[in-house]
């Protein structure tokens, strides 16, 4: 059945760069980022929408990239952990994660950073309770979360001061 391998035309902007693509419909966003663009900063842990390691931002909103079809996102803006640091160095979240030891093995970290980046856009000065609720969709098997919550709070304060 030749139709089954047919592809769909999409335009995706990833970390500010526009890609005009023809993709198979069954390609997940995580597969597109990792296997097609070789942006392997986005990690795939559970691959069943449970752990959040694969989280990226789509039009500013956190999304688990293992559970979205790339072709569904035509004309969307996608941000991955590779795009987080700016020309002046680490993003305040990354700097706070380093200072606060908010990572150990680092496997969950790209997804946690992007989830937190989305949270801070929706809610620039979240309370610890709001940070915990905002990170509900990620799992970290190393840190016990305390340092992650502290780092997100610290990054929010740093971003607030810089503005």
């Amino acid at each position, binding site marked *: 059945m030749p*139709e*089954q391998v047919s592809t769909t035309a999409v335009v995706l902007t990833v970390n500010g760069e526009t890609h005009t693509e023809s993709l*198979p*419909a069954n390609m997940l966003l995580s597969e597109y980022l990792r296997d097609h663009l070789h942006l392997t900063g986005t990690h795939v842990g559970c691959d069943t*929408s449970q752990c959040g390691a694969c989280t990226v931002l789509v039009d500013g909103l956190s*999304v688990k990239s293992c559970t*979205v079809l790339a072709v*569904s996102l035509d004309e969307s803006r996608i941000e991955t952990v590779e795009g987080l640091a700016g020309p002046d160095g680490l993003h305040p979240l990354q700097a706070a994660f380093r200072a606060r030891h908010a990572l150990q093995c680092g496997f969950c970290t790209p997804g946690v950073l992007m989830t937190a980046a*989305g949270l801070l856009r929706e809610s620039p000065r979240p309370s610890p309770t709001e940070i915990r609720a905002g990170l509900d*969709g990620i799992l970290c098997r190393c840190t016990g979360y305390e340092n992650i919550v502290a780092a997100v709070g610290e990054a929010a304060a740093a971003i607030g001061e810089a503005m």
Partner: protein
Amino acid sequence: MSMTPFRYARPMALRDALADLTEHPEARVLAGGMSLLPLMKMDLAAPERLIDLGRVQELQGITETPDGIRIGAMTRHFELASDEVVGRCAPIVAQAAAHVGDPQVRHRGTIGGSLAHADPAADLPAAMLAADAVIEAASADGSRMIPAADFFVGPLVTELRPGEMLVAVRIPMLQGRRQHYEKVPHPASGYAVVGVAISLAVAGGVVQEARIGVTGVAGHAYRAHAAERALEGEGLNPGVIAKASSLAAEGEEILGDAVYASAEYRRHLLQVTLSRALQRVS
């Protein structure tokens, strides 16, 4: 995990989506994908064709109508949870939506997908029952209105017919009603072990009309009619709350499983949860 290939359509208009569904009875519609894509990845579903509803204009948006609100099927959970109109006219719907999954799931999942999927432990069905919602369904032949009380018929089974799509949900104006959604989430999955949505019209300290939607404990979400009747005409005092709560499972077959919640446990938890919800609004 790679998925079995499928054909893919992304119509821009409702008419085209409905025509596609009529022409391809084997197709499934794709909304937020938060239930369908995991099933496809695990090979528990392998549709030959997906009709992506993401760009269908008519399925978007929340509008105020003379007697309530109309919520397009593709409205995402996070929009329901934060929308000003929903928060004012139907706070129970916003509250239940905020309990769905986690932020990432709420950014993609939709009200239409949640109701059409009809997971017996989903949150929004309970809110729809308490809100007296009406489901607007359409096929290539026309559209019809299905009261929420008739919509959920079994685990993952609804009143929707082949070729039919959920287009919107209509909620009557609930402003002024006492409303609350009380949920006991499963600690791992986050789905409701028990969820109770209540909406009460109270005047002069007396309950005029009660609506109670229950999820998580039976094969599908249901209205607790016996408990509703026990409240109507009464004041919200401890005796009445205890009586109504004891009737929450009346006439229903309560599910049990050996792994984490027996039927007896669920029945008890349901009684406690309804009682807490009623205390919250009394």
